[in-house]
C-alpha cells in the first residue's frame, strides 16, 4: 500500500502535493496500479521508493520531447540566441527560463513548457534560431503529464490520468496536476472555478482570474510567488507552480530536510593578491601591545574645530589627529617607520611618513595612504583623507594613492570592537588598530569618578627589529599627545 502510494505521488510529479484524501480511496488504487503497469515499462517502478524525485542520476526512462521555439509575434521567423540559462543535463521545471533570444531590438525570454531534464541544445550562442523549429530537447519524466496548452504539439501521454482522478474525486473537473496544486495552495474549490480550456478544462489563468476577482488585486494572489527573495537566474517569476520542488507539505513525523548546497567559487583578482600578501605577512614574527586612551579632551577639541573645518569644506573626523600624533611619535622612534629587506640583512629607515588608512569598501580592504604626514598640518591631513575616502567609495583610487605606505592605522572602531590583533602589511613593520570610543567611568586625580571617552589601541610590530620597550614608548608618546592635545603644539613643525 505504501509503495503504491509512493508510486502514485511520484507519478504526479516531483515535489508536488500528495492529496491525503486520495490515499483513502483504496479500491481505485489497484485499478490505477494496473493501468500504470500497462503504460510504463518496469523502470518506472524504481521511483516507488522515493516520495520526492531527486534528479541527480540520469535515469532515462522518460520520453524526449522536442521543445519548439514558439511564435514571437509581429511575424518574426528568426531570432539570435544570446544567452543560455541552462545546459545539457540540467533539470528544469515548467516556466523556468531556458534562454534569451534577440530579434530586432526585442529581447525575448523563452521559458520551458515542461518539467524534465535538458538533453540537447539545438543552437550555440549567437546562432540563428527559427520559429517553429526545435530549440531544446527535454526528457520528460514519463509519469508526469504534459501541461496542455493551446499550441502544444505532442499529445500528452498522461491525459487519461486526469480522467481517472475525476472519477475518484467525484467531481467533473478537468485540470492538470499543476493547476490542481495551485488551487489547493490557495484553498480554492475547483468546482467553483470556471474553466476556459478545452472541455471546460480549468487552466492556470482561470485560477488566477478567480483569485483576482476575490481579492480585487492586480498582483498574482499567491504570496508564494517568490517576490522576496528573488529566485536566481530566472527573468520571469510566475505564481506558485515554480516552487513546487521546494514546497512539500510534510506529515508531522517527517524531519525537516535542509536543501541548501555548498557553493565553491575560485579566488580571483584582488582576493588572490590578498592571499599572497597575508601569507607573506604571516612570516613576520608579530608581537602585540595594547593600551587605553582617554580621549575626553580630544573629543571636546574636535567639537570646537569641526565647524571651522566645515567652513573650509572639509569634514573633520578623529583620524587626522591620530595620524598626526603617530607621525610625531615616528619622529622619535623612526624604527617603526622602517622596512626590512627580504634577506633580513638591512633595515631601511624611511624618510617619509606615508601613513596608510585602512578602508572598508565593497571589494574588501584597501589601504590608501596620506603622503608625507611629517610636513602636513592636521587640516591638510583631513582634506587629503576626504579626497581618499570619496575616491575609495567611488572605486577610483589610483596606484599612487595605494602604494608607498610606511605605517598603517586601522580604525576598525567605526564598525565596532575594542581590542584587535592587526596583521602588519608588508613591507611595513608596524600597524595600529583603533577600537571604538566608549563612554566609561574612570577615576580622576582627586579620586572622583567622571565620564571618560575611552578608546583602545592595539599595536602589532615586527619583533625582528622592534622590541617591546620601543613599541611601548612610542605608544605612550602617541597616547600623551592625544590625551593632552595641547602638548602637540610644542612639537608640531
Amino acid at each position, binding site marked *: 500500500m505504501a509503495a503504491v502510494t509512493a508510486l502514485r505521488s511520484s507519478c504526479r510529479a516531483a515535489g508536488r502535493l500528495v492529496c491525503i484524501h486520495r490515499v483513502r480511496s483504496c479500491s481505485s488504487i489497484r485499478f490505477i496500479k494496473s493501468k500504470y503497469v500497462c503504460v510504463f515499462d518496469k523502470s518506472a517502478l524504481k521511483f516507488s521508493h522515493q516520495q520526492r524525485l531527486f534528479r541527480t542520476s540520469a535515469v532515462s526512462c522518460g520520453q524526449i520531447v522536442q521543445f519548439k521555439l514558439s511564435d514571437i509575434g509581429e511575424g518574426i521567423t528568426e531570432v539570435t540566441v544570446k544567452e543560455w540559462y541552462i545546459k545539457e543535463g540540467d533539470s528544469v521545471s515548467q516556466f523556468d527560463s531556458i534562454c534569451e533570444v534577440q530579434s530586432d531590438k526585442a529581447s525575448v525570454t523563452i521559458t520551458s513548457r515542461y518539467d524534465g531534464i535538458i538533453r540537447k541544445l539545438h543552437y550555440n550562442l549567437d546562432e540563428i534560431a527559427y520559429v517553429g523549429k526545435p530549440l531544446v530537447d527535454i526528457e520528460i519524466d514519463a509519469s508526469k503529464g504534459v501541461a496542455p496548452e493551446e499550441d502544444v504539439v505532442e499529445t500528452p501521454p498522461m491525459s487519461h490520468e486526469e480522467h481517472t482522478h475525476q472519477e475518484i474525486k467525484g467531481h467533473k473537473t478537468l485540470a492538470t496536476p499543476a493547476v490542481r496544486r495551485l488551487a489547493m495552495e490557495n484553498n480554492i474549490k475547483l468546482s467553483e472555478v470556471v474553466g476556459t480550456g478545452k472541455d471546460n478544462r480549468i487552466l492556470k489563468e482561470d485560477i488566477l482570474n478567480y483569485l483576482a476577482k476575490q481579492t*480585487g488585486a492586480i*498582483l498574482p494572489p499567491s504570496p508564494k510567488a517568490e517576490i522576496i527573495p528573488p529566485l536566481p537566474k530566472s527573468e520571469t517569476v510566475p505564481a506558485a507552480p515554480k516552487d513546487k520542488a521546494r514546497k512539500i507539505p510534510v506529515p508531522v513525523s517527517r524531519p525537516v530536510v535542509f536543501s541548501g548546497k555548498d557553493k565553491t567559487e575560485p579566488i580571483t583578482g584582488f582576493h588572490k593578491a590578498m592571499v599572497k*600578501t597575508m601569507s607573506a605577512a604571516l612570516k613576520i614574527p608579530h608581537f602585540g601591545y595594547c593600551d587605553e586612551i582617554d580621549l575626553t579632551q580630544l573629543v571636546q577639541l574636535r567639537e570646537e574645530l569641526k565647524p571651522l573645518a566645515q567652513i573650509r569644506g572639509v569634514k573633520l573626523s578623529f583620524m587626522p589627529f591620530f595620524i598626526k600624533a603617530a607621525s610625531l611619535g615616528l619622529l622619535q622612534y623612526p624604527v617603526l617607520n622602517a622596512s626590512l629587506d627580504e634577506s633580513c640583512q638591512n633595515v631601511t629607515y624611511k624618510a617619509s611618513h606615508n601613513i596608510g588608512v585602512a578602508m572598508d569598501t565593497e571589494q574588501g580592504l584597501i589601504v590608501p595612504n596620506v603622503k608625507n604626514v611629517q610636513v602636513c598640518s592636521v587640516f591638510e591631513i583631513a582634506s587629503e583623507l576626504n579626497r581618499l575616502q570619496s575616491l575609495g567609495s567611488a572605486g577610483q583610487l589610483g596606484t599612487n594613492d595605494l602604494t608607498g605606505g610606511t605605517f598603517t592605522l586601522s580604525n576598525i572602531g567605526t564598525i565596532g570592537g575594542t581590542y584587535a590583533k592587526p596583521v602588519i602589511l608588508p613591507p611595513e613593520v608596524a600597524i595600529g588598530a583603533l577600537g571604538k570610543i566608549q563612554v566609561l567611568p574612570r577615576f580622576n586625580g582627586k579620586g572622583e569618578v567622571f565620564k571618560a571617552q575611552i578608546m583602545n589601541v592595539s599595536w602589532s610590530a615586527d619583533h625582528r627589529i622592534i622590541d617591546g620597550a620601543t613599541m611601548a614608548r612610542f605608544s605612550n608618546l602617541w597616547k600623551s599627545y592625544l590625551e593632552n592635545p595641547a602638548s602637540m603644539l610644542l612639537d608640531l613643525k
Partner: protein
Amino acid sequence: MVLQSSLKNCLHLSYILRTPKAGFRSTTSGSLIIQSTSNDVYQNLAVEDWIHDHMNLENRQVLFLWRNSPAVVIGRHQNPWQECNLRLLRQKNIKLARRRSGGGTVYHDLGNINLTFFTTRKKYERMENLKLVVKALKALRPQLDVHVTDRYDILLDRQYKISGTAAKLGRTAAYHHCTLLCNADKFVLSSVLKSPYKGLKSNATPSVPASVKNLFEEDPSLTCEMLLDAIAEEYATQHQIDHRITFNPADETVLPGINNKTKELQTWDWVYGKTPKFSVSTCFNMVYKDSVLDVKVDMDVKHGRIEVCNIDLPEQWLPSALCGELVKSLTGSKFCPNETSTLATTLLRVCPQDDELHSRWNLLCENMIMLM
C-alpha cells in the same frame, strides 16, 4: 483632460483603481497611465521589471512615463566597453545601466522622456505604440514633420532620430519602450557614446549611430512636460482612462520586492558581467624616463572577467617572474580599473622593495587600467 493623482498612503495600485475619483467615473478598461517621481535610472528600470513580472495584463494595458538624471543605458546583450566612454562616465559621475530589453545604447538625461507600453505577449505591437506617439506629437504641434520608420525609430524632418525603441518579451507579458528627445544635452550625448577602447572584438549587439536632434530645437516652446501630457492624453483617449497616477518607485508598499530588483540592476555582475564574451587585442606606448616602450596586450573577457591574459613587454624591462605574477593575478579578476589597481598595488607589497621597480610596475598598471 487627464487628471493627475499621486499615490500617498495607498497600498497597491489596485486600491487606487477601486477608489472612484470624486466626480469622475472609475476606469472602465482597467488600463493605467503611471508616472514615476524618481529620476534614478535603476529604480525606473526596476519598475519595468516589476510590472513585467507581477502585474496581470490580461485585460489591461499600462503606459509608464519616466525620466532619468544623466545615465547611459545599454541593451541587454551589449558590450559597454564597445558602446561608450566608460572613463568619461566615471569622471562625470554618469551612471551606467543595462536594461533587460534588447536594442542599442542610449543616453538619458532630464531632457529625454521614456515611455513604456505594457501589454500581454499576444497584444505586443510596437508600430501601434509609435503611431500613437506620432499622433500625439502632431496633435500638439501639427507642423512637426515626424514619422515612424520600419526600424521603429521616429525621425524628425526625415533626417534626425528623436526616438529609439527596444522591447522585452516574457512568457505572458511584453513591453515596448522608447525614448523621445526633447531637450537633452547633445554635447554630452555624443561624447559619452563614443568609445575610446581599441582592439575590441565581440559578438555583442552593436549600436547603430544616428544623427539626433532635440524637439526643442525645432520648436523652443516645447517642454518635456508638454510632451508627456500630450502622449498621456492620446493614450488615455485610446484606452478610456481618465487619470494618471504618479508614484515613488522606492515604495515597497506599492511595489513589494521592488528594492531587490533595483539592487540587482546595480550589481557589477549585471551591468558588466552580462557582457557577451569578447577579446581585447591592442598595443600602446609607455614613456619611461627617456625611452618609449611598446607594449602589446591580449585578453579574453568572459562574464566581465579576464579569462586569458597576455602582456608582451620589452625584454627585461620588468623581471619576468613579476610579470608572470601580474598576469596570473589578472586572470580571473574583473575587467575593471578599480579591481586591477587594488590587485596590482596589493601585489607590490610582496615584491622586492626597489623604487625603480615600483615606478615601472605602477606605470605598466596604469596603462593596463586605461584599457578598462
